[in-house]
């Protein structure tokens, strides 16, 4: 056929295995989630192999803590799914980085990547709208619910004055304040890294990014420390725990999903740091780093909302 030169700057991509493999990884991961948290078979002792792999894995974790219970391998499928997904993401983004280095990301493609990242952050924001919505619902309308649900709430009268009677929140001015300062500081270090890169100071950029990642992982460590404390106090009914009240549920799932997003953001920044160390990311073209920084500021803002409402306002009584 007669050839006809491509005269546009858009990026046409050759066939790629990663999307199909992502779908398969999602299937393995999803099956692992169901097996681990719900279990596909009951434990009867009839078929040890089936029950090892397909019975609920969570029972074993809690029974390990209490010292009884049988062995379950439900987590193995979940782990395989996670590793599979990680492998696919590595391969996919390695391809993107190579295409960028090869000059495929022309100015118009670069603008497209920016639109894409903005849209992605918008949908992340709407995801947190869901969590804040249920938090505000439980905290603003507990009085009404208390009067409707006198037959199911064990202490309806107490719910009329508090969203979670008997639960004392985490002291906002202790670990959470420290985490707030850490995240805000990391917001400045990532900006330092970005501007250092723009001005050609690669050494400064490397240090700035390294510190940002470090602060991110410290944040996650402190959050883990807080969860561990709450886990040990959960039985006494004074610490918020995901199972004791709807406030505890909102507390753990909202801060937990935020923590997950901090982890994602920190890994994103770590990848940028790795690319920087290997000589990637030019001073005039480094959208990977910019996208990571946008994402990092986004998780920062979500944390400020969590800190203000889930920690401070609850402690002072809504």
């Amino acid at each position, binding site marked *: 056929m007669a050839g006809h030169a491509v005269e546009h700057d858009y990026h046409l991509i050759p066939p790629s295995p990663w999307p199909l493999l992502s779908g398969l990884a*999602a299937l393995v991961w999803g099956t692992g989630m169901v097996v681990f948290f719900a279990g596909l078979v009951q434990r009867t002792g009839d078929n040890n192999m089936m029950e090892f792999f397909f019975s609920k894995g969570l029972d074993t974790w809690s029974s390990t803590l209490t010292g009884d219970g049988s062995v379950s391998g439900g987590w193995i499928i979940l782990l395989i799914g996670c590793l599979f997904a990680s492998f696919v993401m590595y391969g996919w983004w390695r391809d993107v980085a190579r295409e960028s280095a090869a000059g495929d990301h022309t100015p118009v493609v670069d603008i497209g990547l920016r639109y894409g990242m903005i849209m992605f952050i918008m949908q992340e924001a709407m995801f947190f*709208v869901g969590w804040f919505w249920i938090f505000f619902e439980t905290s603003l309308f507990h009085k009404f619910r208390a009067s409707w649900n006198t037959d199911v709430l064990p202490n309806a009268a107490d719910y009329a004055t508090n969203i979670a009677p008997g639960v004392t929140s985490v002291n906002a001015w202790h670990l959470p304040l420290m985490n707030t300062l850490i995240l805000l500081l990391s917001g400045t270090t990532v900006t330092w890294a970005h501007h250092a890169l723009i001005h050609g100071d690669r050494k400064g950029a490397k240090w700035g990014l390294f510190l940002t990642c470090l602060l991110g992982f410290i944040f996650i460590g402190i959050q883990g420390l807080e969860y561990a404390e709450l886990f040990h106090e959960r039985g006494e009914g004074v610490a918020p725990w995901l199972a004791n009240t709807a406030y505890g549920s909102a507390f753990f799932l909202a801060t937990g999903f935020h923590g997950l997003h901090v982890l994602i953001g920190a890994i994103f920044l770590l990848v940028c740091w790795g690319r920087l160390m290997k000589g990637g990311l030019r001073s005039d073209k480094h959208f990977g780093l910019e996208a990571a920084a946008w994402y990092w500021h986004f998780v920062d803002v979500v944390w400020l909302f969590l800190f203000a409402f889930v920690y401070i306002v609850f402690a002072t009584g809504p």
Partner: protein
Amino acid sequence: MVAISGNDTGSYGDDKPSFFARWFYSTNHKDIGTLYLIFGIISGLIGGFLSFMMRMELGEPGIQFFTNEHQYLVFVSMHGLIMIFFMVMPALIGGFGNWFVPIMIGAPDMAFPRMNNLSFWLLPTALICLLVSFVLPGSASGDGFGGGWVMYPPLSTSGSPGPAFDFIIIGLLAAGFSSIFGAINFITTILNMRAPGMTMHKMPLFAWSVLVTAFLLLLALPVLAAALFMLFTDRIDGGTGFFDPARGGDPQMFQHLFWFFGHPEVYIMILPAFGIISHIVSTFSKKPIFGYLGMAYAMVAIGVVGFVVWAHHMYTIGMDVNLKAYFLAATLVIAVPTGVKIFSWLATMWGGSIRYTIPMQWALAFIFLFVIGGVTGVVLANAGVDTALHDTYYVVAHFHYVLSMGAVFGIFAGFYYWFGKMFGIMYNKFLAAAHFWLFFIGVNVIFFPQHFLGMNGMPRRYVDYPADFELWNHVSTMGAMITLLGVVFFFLMLIEAFIVRRKVGDNYWGEGATTLEWTLSSPPPYHQFNTLPRIDEDPTEHDADKMH
């Protein structure tokens, strides 16, 4: 609608990858669109089978085919989920959106071709999860999940403890992420890749409809994802208590989160059909669409207002009367932009040179039937009336008129309109007409009597009913058989067309078809617009000239 200069008529390298790479590793928007359409047809057959069994069961009082009420409810729930997430959305947005949005805006492909394929390949994963749930333990009454597509707790928490529903959650999360990635892709493509000279106000209405739809997906689906995660953790022993009143939680809160997604979702399903119908009505009236800007911004208005009306699905939960008044008024407001669209279609046809081709028949039927569904929607929007009609067959009739006859007729209209463009061949007009008329008569016979059943108080989601309801149920089941015959003719049409292979030209609809896809060959080259088209003239001026 758009005047084009510098047509891309040169033939150029059409080297396609090998079969496996082409269809499994695809990064080509047209191939991915075809995959979506095939996927939609398969899902439609599964969902259609479920509904046909339900209709057979309801043909007469008593339990004929199902083992128990639970199994019937499993069919009801899965019919809803599969038809919405795996038939209408993949066909309209994934199928036609992928095929024609890049071409209509003069782009060579989507903005993120690889992510485009990820959107597709998450869907088989999701469908497998849903189908697996049929054979896994659900509630005490049997396998599968029977809590309805709305998945309200406690039916979806303590009411269905088995892993069946956990798989549905995973499946819907996968389908949700598929749609979110698709939405990001469409928004970026439309905002960033329009051909030189194609301003937003010169963009074809189908691209506008997909743009609005993509924003609705982007903003509504994450909230559903959050709600599904809440259900997932609520279902674990020792898990959360979001929807457990004994721990200060609130099952009604799920309904709010769900319908905050669910109401935009109904516009997600109908807006692309609006876009398709606009093109078809304009083409076969040989006139530019009446009130182009009004049509575009009516869709934007529907999208915006669609986010603040969700609680009209929940009038009977015991909400405050002032809240009901607000949601009533906001809901009725949506009738205004919808009316703008209906009357603009009529005004487009007014004085036009109308051709009753197969796609035009589907489009006219769409307008007629969507108006019926819209009018019953106005009835149901009233909180007082809805208190009586809530969860009756009147509601079933209403939303099947807007979906099973709105969205689905939009899909078939688009399919027949672009069939030659996509596959390069023409269908047999007799078989296509038989498909249309059997389908048109069939669905009306199914759903029109359901208005009467609902007005007489027959509730939804029951496997059995008193003998008083037998007559119209019997008629409705006859309609299902007529529709099934229509579906048979659809497949006969497909088989015949692909065996006989009547080749079509570039613009087989002639003068009325003015969008960019008609400047390309049928089917289009593997990569179109290696030289981008230029859109220079003002479409309104140009079209006004053409009319003289």
